[in-house]
């Protein structure tokens, strides 16, 4: 018997309750004290197609999914066809018996076929077919031996708003599914689940990256969010909006993304912490305003949750294609900060830290996330989210008392570090102007050479101050000295960490440099790590290896190999390991020549 270490995959058409069943099961497992990592995969359609929800369970904290599936819950034939090969020997496939799947066809690969009358039970006991996913939830607990009380608990909280009758019907359906699966299949199924701690006081939070980001922003005093819906950025907006009434936040859905960032810039100028959220397409529309925020020195936070590009691309799929873009997007050269969280905890931290940095440097701060991170669910201890411990730093924002004493206020005053004392409009002593034109310290347009040069230097001076005071070097995971060093950013971090763990277990010294602060690039804090690296491998969800390019541009160091994936799907640890050996067989002498895309000698580049 293998206890509390398995992967359950639930799949079916959109509209069949794959997502609600999956998130219900995730919570039910979390409330049993288990660690869960859940991956969601869905198509850009509301009904039909094929979606799945993949839940990895462990007693140890986990940061990635893995390829092996132990229990497949299939609502459609297509789901079985697509995923049966992922099921390990001894694993099982639970499916609705009305699908008419021949169990013998599955037995060949050593997989147990477990037909259950899911929709029949749902109709006969619950009164509606739609409860088939509730029945499957019960059956999952039944076959794995998981405590039904945990399922009951989740059904009760999920349906509380719908009233007692709905709760009772769902409970009856779940119990019938539980009993059927338990009696018929549990005995022969060796992967088991068991609660390890059910104390409500110790319950972990279950949240995805966008919720982490929203939570961080709220905790960091974000008082204003304006956005236009765009997958996968929308749930940051929705999470903050849901809490807006309670915490005194203004939330505004605007007519387009241009307005979304401009509302936020207006709000930032008038004195609050403001943000907007979008994906690559919406960010494209925001670019002109990014230049505006930079030249008017207005704090604003932009969450760019990447998806597969180019153009509309893969709307519900993951990719990391926008790093180059967000770093350089603007008319003219303008200071900004780019942060890329890799875990949900880092999403939380970036959520509040971005607002501190935006106000300190009076410039745009971009949080660059991606779909995989935005929608992955994890169980996380509550103390990782230190809401009350966050230090708010509003930088050079002038208080009312300071303004009462001020004379001859200059909004864009030249200073040593490039940062000017910032007033908000409304005080008698600081009636001021600002403009998107190049300007004087008073904010009046100017075209003369000397003030232009000085103002440009003032703005760009902020980069030096950022690098000196705030921008962090990469996080080192694994061995101090290693045979192999991975570089990566954003959502690949979970899989890369597990790769490092697995290599080390096998006796290979390995480490991982994870970049959260990406721009301005912390070259000085990176160089020594990279120079020490014996074999440097970039792992990125894009075609060109944009971090590798950035490293080369800023440090002169070229990676030995790139493992790149742009299929719209995230990396699993197995996939990285499998491709690692391929890089070694094709890798030329390191750090010579250029990139094949742009001429020069070829390096090892594996497209997954």
């Amino acid at each position, binding site marked *: 018997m293998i206890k509390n270490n398995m992967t359950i995959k639930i799949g079916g058409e959109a509209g069949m309750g794959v997502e609600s069943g999956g998130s219900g099961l995730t919570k039910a497992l*979390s*409330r049993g004290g288990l660690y869960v990592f859940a991956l969601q995969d869905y198509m850009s359609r509301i009904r039909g197609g094929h979606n799945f929800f993949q839940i990895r369970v462990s007693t140890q904290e986990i940061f990635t999914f893995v390829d092996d599936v132990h229990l497949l819950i299939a609502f459609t034939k297509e789901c079985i066809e697509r995923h049966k090969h992922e099921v390990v020997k001894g694993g099982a496939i639970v499916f609705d018996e009305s699908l008419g799947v021949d169990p013998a066809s599955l037995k060949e690969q050593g997989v147990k076929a477990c037909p259950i009358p899911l929709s029949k039970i749902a109709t006969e006991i619950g009164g509606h077919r739609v409860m088939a996913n509730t029945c499957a939830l019960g059956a999952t607990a039944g076959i794995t031996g998981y405590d039904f009380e945990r399922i009951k608990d989740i059904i009760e909280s999920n349906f509380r708003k719908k009233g007692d009758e709905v709760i009772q019907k769902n409970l009856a359906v779940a119990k019938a599914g539980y009993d059927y699966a338990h009696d018929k299949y549990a005995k022969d199924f060796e992967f088991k689940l068991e609660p390890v701690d059910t104390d409500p006081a110790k*319950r*972990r*939070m*279950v*949240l995805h990256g966008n919720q982490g980001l929203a*939570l961080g922003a*709220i*905790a960091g*005093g974000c*008082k*204003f969010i*304006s956005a236009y819906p765009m997958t996968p950025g929308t749930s940051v907006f929705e999470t903050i909006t849901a809490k*807006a009434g309670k*915490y*005194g*936040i*203004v939330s*505004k859905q*605007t*007519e*387009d993304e*241009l*307005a979304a960032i*401009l*509302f*936020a*810039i*207006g*709000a930032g*100028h*008038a*004195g*609050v912490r*403001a943000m907007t959220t979008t994906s690559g397409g919406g960010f494209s529309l925001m670019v*002109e*305003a990014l230049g*505006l925020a930079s030249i*008017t020195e207005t704090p604003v936070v932009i969450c760019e949750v990447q998806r597969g590009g180019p153009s509309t691309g893969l709307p519900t799929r993951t990719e990391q294609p926008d790093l180059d873009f967000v770093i350089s997007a603007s008319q003219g050269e303008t200071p900004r900060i780019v942060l890329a969280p890799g875990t949900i905890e880092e999403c939380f931290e970036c959520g509040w830290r971005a607002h501190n940095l935006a106000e300190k440097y009076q410039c745009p701060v971009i949080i660059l996330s991606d779909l995989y991170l935005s929608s992955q669910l994890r169980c996380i201890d*509550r103390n990782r*989210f230190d*809401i*009350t411990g966050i230090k*708010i730093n509003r930088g050079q924002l002038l208080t009312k008392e300071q303004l009462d004493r001020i004379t001859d206020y200059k909004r864009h005053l030249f200073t040593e570090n490039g940062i000017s004392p910032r007033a*908000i*409009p*409304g*005080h*008698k002593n600081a*009636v*001021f*102007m*600002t*403009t*998107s*034109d190049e300007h004087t310290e*008073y904010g*009046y*347009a100017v075209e003369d050479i000397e003030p232009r040069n000085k103002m440009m230097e003032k703005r760009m001076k902020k980069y030096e101050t950022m690098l000196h005071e705030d921008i962090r070097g990469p996080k080192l995971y694994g061995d101090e000295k290693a045979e192999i060093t991975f570089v990566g950013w954003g959502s690949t971090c979970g899989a890369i960490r597990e790769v490092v763990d697995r290599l080390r277990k096998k006796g290979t010294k390995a480490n991982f440099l994870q970049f959260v602060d990406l721009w301005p690039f912390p070259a000085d804090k990176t160089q020594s790590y990279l120079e020490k690296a014996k074999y440097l491998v970039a792992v990125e969800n894009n075609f060109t290896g944009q971090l590798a390019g950035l490293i080369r541009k800023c440090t002169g160091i070229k990676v030995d190999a790139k493992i790149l994936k742009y299929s719209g799907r995230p990396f699993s640890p197995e996939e990285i390991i499998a491709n690692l050996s391929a890089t070694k067989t094709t890798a030329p002498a390191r750090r010579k020549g250029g990139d094949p895309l742009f001429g020069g000698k070829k390096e090892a580049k594996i497209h997954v």
Partner: protein
Amino acid sequence: MSKVDDFISTEAVTWCPGCGDFPILKCLKESLVNQGLEPHQVMVVSGIGCGSKLPYYIRTNGYNSLHGRALPIAQGIKLVNHDLRVIVVTGDGDGLGIGGNHFLHGMRRNPDLTHLVENNQVYGLTKGQTSPTSEKGYVSSTSPDGSIEFPANAVLMGVSGGATFVARTSSGDPKHMTDIITRAMKHKGYALIDVLQPCVTFNKVNTYQWYKQKVYNVETTADYAPKDRVWAFKKALEWEEKIPIGVIYQVEGIPTYEEQVPALKEGPLAYQDLTGKVRADAEKLKESFC
């Protein structure tokens, strides 16, 4: 009490001699004085264009933004500090062309803003190209055979789009303009003013003389009924023969956008505490994810 001198900026005005923007600047200052407003209480947000240089030439808080983008910035500012009296200044290309989407959606929200569309029916700062309000047949470097588009009509768009105050005035009649600006600013909600403002350098058709012959004060006509939207539509459609000036449509008692936002009930957002509420509720907030 403020006086006109309080609003005088240090900046030298760069408009062409005789520009229709001069009366707008003068009338705006007079109106602010008439209303007893002081410079720090006022925020002027503009787009880009000749007329959008106005914030440089008046001593109030000013934000000279991007071409077409004044309205969303102004709405963001107003939502954060509704004590500020926010005036939006755009041109016709700026406000109705490149910023057209913001115009359509801004007015249906009824934010408490006064929006002056400085309408000279031409692109002035880029040297005379056809604008959204240029007449059909208008000849310019970008329409050498004459424009083949119908002109946009700001007043008509305002009446149909949900503006709660729609007026037109003319740079040729400063007294009228001061009065209209004051009434627009006193109106609670979105107030649109279409300002007929000749470009003396590039528009040789729609001149002071041309406007003078065409405009009439609609408020002195026998059937004047600005609360009647159907009447307002009729007046908004007038252009070829005669051009009505004055308040064409006004509906009062519609709540402003800011009045309906719960977070603003405790006063301007800009002066509210940042994290007190969320810190006090931190454990419950986390519990909601468990």
